């Protein structure tokens, strides 16, 4: 499987990635930049744990600490976890439904570059007068009082990257609705595609409230609009509502795709069809649906009154039911199977107890009166790290090992993978389990220091040592990635041997058009069905081999996003009476609207891959694009 990318010069490769509209390359872009931000967020996490390793530590100052926690949360959620999940969605979902690309390849590229420039913009705040310091929740009274530009970086940066995420969500929805291969009914879609579908619907519905919140925040900060200024009749609780109407579904946007990855893994490495597939699908939809009805459980202590608190407490508890359904169906999937303990599978196995632990503490916090004690204490810190690390991050690590061969055509080392797993897994529980008790012992969250007289020294020291183990695990993963890439041992279509869905029926990495012929789907786990039927050709095809229409690459998404990035600097410094701010704002907008105009005026009809080229590819020629 030769690759033209390697024959190309470095500059040509960079240009290729800047202009690509291929979902597989965009997936790699998401993975690399999401991975980069994951490391940045991880360093911030280490700074937090160093600061809290002992009582009265002065490693970080009070103000810096608040910047670090804010950026840790914001980076991990918006710039690491979501993009990496979007990487897997991009890499795998179109393959799973037998499509040649997503519905809107151009928008796919635009979505990525908006996220990328938004993330860079947000992180540049470190070097341009201070990062945001009001927590990732950015509660309004504190945010409006914050003097540096940090909050402006936060509001503008998240607005830009939020556009990107929203575009990605819409794109996936349209793709799944319209581009499934013949025979791929909704109830034959792989579980990961289902969770992508529901998560995308959540993105579509959850990001607008965030955008509204961010817009009003920007207006308040820059133009004195007083939406949240109490002394002018504004109300800060409205920010809390807007934020959590977005924020709670966001949690499910993070966890559902991880559920999808684990569902694939349980089936593959147990050699067994997902137990209760229908129940899993409906549980996914129900979780997505309920996700919009429980936001006020983040606000039990705000003073909404007993009626609201009781209603939201009960609504929150109900979510435990579909989540429980999922856990038991996974258990019954591996029950009676043939379990192979590969790296993805041990992550999936480890996920079950970790996530159950996070789930039960979630139910405990749904008990509103009990939450008055747990809210904003280290108990909640422990809880959400159990669900996000124990669910989403384990899912991401599992997905990285599972889909690495499909994305890059080479396998990550299983041996190093297991080292990573043990360091990360033990470190994770060591760090966060004990934090439940810190919370119960009265330690509030977001404190930059604590006194030696509070009785929290030992547990904090233990927690910090666990964080060091997690860091070692991540470093081993990086070593693994480098070694694997250097070795570059190529692998075939189905490297795990027990692939069940369509992505395992085609080469790794797939040719840029994915499927020379669109496959015919005969049931759930369609590739497994063909394998069991002894189909030598791999799949049954729904069409003869003919010319394929593909979209052209384009630099316009990159330029558009760059324009927005530039304009944001102008907007941000405009009110500082900087002379250059207005020209920068105008230049940025000209770039943005100019490239939009260009895109609208210039016809881009794409190109055809001819039948002859397809035949040549099938004999082992070029598979990696033009």
């Amino acid at each position, binding site marked *: 499987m030769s690759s033209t990318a390697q024959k190309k010069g470095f500059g040509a490769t960079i240009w290729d990635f800047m202009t690509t509209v291929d979902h597989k390359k965009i997936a790699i872009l998401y993975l690399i930049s999401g991975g980069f931000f994951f490391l940045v967020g991880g360093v911030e996490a280490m700074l937090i744990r160093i600061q809290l390793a002992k009582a009265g530590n002065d490693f970080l*100052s*009070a103000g810096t600490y*608040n910047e670090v926690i804010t950026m840790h949360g914001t980076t991990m959620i918006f710039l690491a976890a979501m993009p990496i999940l979007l990487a897997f969605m991009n890499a795998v979902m179109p393959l799973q439904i037998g499509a040649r690309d997503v519905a809107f390849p151009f928008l796919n590229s635009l979505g990525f570059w908006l996220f990328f420039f938004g993330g860079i913009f947000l992180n540049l705040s470190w070097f341009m007068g201070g990062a945001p*310091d009001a927590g990732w929740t950015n*509660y309004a*009274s*504190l945010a409006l009082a914050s003097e540096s530009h940090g909050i402006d970086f936060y509001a503008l940066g998240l607005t830009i990257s939020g556009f990107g995420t929203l575009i990605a969500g819409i794109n996936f929805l349209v793709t799944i609705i319209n581009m499934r291969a013949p025979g791929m009914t909704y109830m034959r879609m792989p579980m990961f595609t289902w969770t992508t579908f529901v998560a995308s619907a959540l993105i579509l519905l959850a990001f607008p409230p965030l955008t509204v919140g961010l817009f009003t925040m920007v207006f308040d900060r820059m133009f004195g609009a007083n939406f949240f200024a*109490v002394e002018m009749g504004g109300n*800060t*609780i409205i920010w809390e509502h807007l934020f959590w109407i977005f924020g709670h579904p966001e949690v499910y946007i993070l966890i559902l795709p991880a559920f999808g990855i684990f569902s694939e893994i349980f089936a593959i490495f147990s*050699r*067994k*069809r997902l*137990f*209760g*597939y*229908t129940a899993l699908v409906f549980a996914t939809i129900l979780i997505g649906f309920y996700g919009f009805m429980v936001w006020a459980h983040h606000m039990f*202590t705000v*003073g909404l*009154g*007993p009626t609201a*608190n*009781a209603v939201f*407490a009960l609504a929150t*508890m*109900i979510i435990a039911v579909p989540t429980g359904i999922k856990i*038991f*169906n996974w*258990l*019954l999937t*591996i029950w*009676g*199977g*043939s*379990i192979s*303990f590969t790296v993805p599978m041990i992550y999936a196995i480890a996920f079950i107890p970790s996530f159950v632990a996070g789930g*039960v503490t979630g*139910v405990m916090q749904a*008990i*509103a*009166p*009990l939450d*008055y*004690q747990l*809210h*904003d*204490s280290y108990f909640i810190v422990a809880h959400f790290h159990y669900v996000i690390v124990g669910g989403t991050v384990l899912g991401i690590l599992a997905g990285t090992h599972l889909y690495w061969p499909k994305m890059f055509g080479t396998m990550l080392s299983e041996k190093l993978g297991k080292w990573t797993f043990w360091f990360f897994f033990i470190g994770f529980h060591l760090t966060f389990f004990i934090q439940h*008790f810190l919370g*119960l*012992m*009265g330690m*509030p969250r*977001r404190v*930059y*220091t604590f*006194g030696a007289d*509070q*009785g*929290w020294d030992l547990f904090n020291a233990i927690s910090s040592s666990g964080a060091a183990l997690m860091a070692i695990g991540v470093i081993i993963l990086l070593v693994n990635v480098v070694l694997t890439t250097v070795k570059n041992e190529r692998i075939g279509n189905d490297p795990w041997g027990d692939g069940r869905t369509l992505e395992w029926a085609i080469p790794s990495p797939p040719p840029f058009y994915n499927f020379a012929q669109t496959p015919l789907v005969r049931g759930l786990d369609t590739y497994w069905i063909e394998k*069991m039927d002894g189909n030598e050709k791999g799949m049954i095809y729904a069409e003869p081999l003919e010319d394929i229409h593909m979209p052209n690459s384009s630099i316009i998404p990159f330029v558009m996003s760059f324009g927005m990035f530039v304009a944001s600097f102008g907007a941000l410094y405009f009110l500082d009476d900087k002379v250059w701010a207005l020209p920068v704002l105008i230049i940025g907008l000209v770039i943005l609207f100019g490239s939009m105009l260009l895109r609208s005026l210039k016809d881009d009809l794409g190109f055809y891959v001819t039948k002859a080229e397809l035949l040549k590819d099938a004999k082992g020629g070029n598979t990696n694009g033009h």
Partner: protein
Amino acid sequence: MMKGIKKWRLFALMTILLVFLAGCGREEISTLIPAGKVAQDQFNLLILSSVVMAFVIIVVSIIFVLAIVKFRRSKVGEDMIPEQIEGSVRLEFIWTAVPIVLLLILAVPTVYSTFDLADVSTMDVEAKDGNASNLTVNVTGNLYWWEFEYPEQGIVTAQELVVPTDERVYFNLISADIKHSFWIPSIGGKLDVNPENVNTFYLEFDRESAELDDGVFYGKCAELCGPSHALMDFKVKSVDREEFDQWVTAMQAEKPAAAEGDLAQQGEELFGADGLACISCHATSGAGGTGGVGPNLATFGDRNRVAGYLEHDEENIKNWIQDPQEYKPGNLMPEASSLNNGKDLSDQELDALAAYLMGLSVEE
């Protein structure tokens, strides 16, 4: 007889506390060692939900461990192709119904307790003599300090809340600036201190704080409010009703007792309008209402901490006055030099101020 029971209760309590102290944190602040009705209710809910959740964890763990032990590929054979089971309606029903039952067990006390803890209907009820039958405290959150006003009694204090034991105490919470959250972990859960509306709830203090190692319960700000959020501590003294009434009477004396000794008198002058004018922000009399620019210092000498978290000694008072930003970044107190024509205070002046402040006391 009563005394005997009380002693026995105390003994039992001490024994339990000793056992717990190892793993449950300090009794001044741990939610696991409740010292009031509200915290006790919440602790009971914690135990109930932990038991129910432990049941869930045990069931999952058994299936989980059995599955990964019994169905390893090395055990079932390399070439074994498992039966591809679609699912089971009966099992789906069971693991839908059982969790619903478990949740109902939790839901009933949840709803009851939510309404119970929010019940402030007896707050402003008047007793026969025309006074309010329950104590109300108006709490104002300020950038890194707390003000406690007792409107019925016409007194105000800061940083150290003094409350009577064994009766309901109602709280009105509001912030003067940024959102805070009012939390005394061993007495009861938190309630946010919003800038735009008054939040109301009640707490009960069932133990006298004098029994504690440190003599006070620890209160916390639980909502990020700026750089010194972590240092926005307050302390709670719970005393029996009689002692509380005495304290109130002492506070109501409009004039603070005159400073005793030369050093303290010199400090008083420095503190006053003709000196550094500290008094323009810090009242030294407990009689009055809310709205102080800086914390009321009428009870300063009785306090447990300086600035809410530093040990209560003259050294810390002097350090604090000299450079408040060093100890609570972002707080609004001006540096001493800015009040002293740009000059640092001399050691002698600091000694005088410390002596004066230490002398501000309403307790005998």
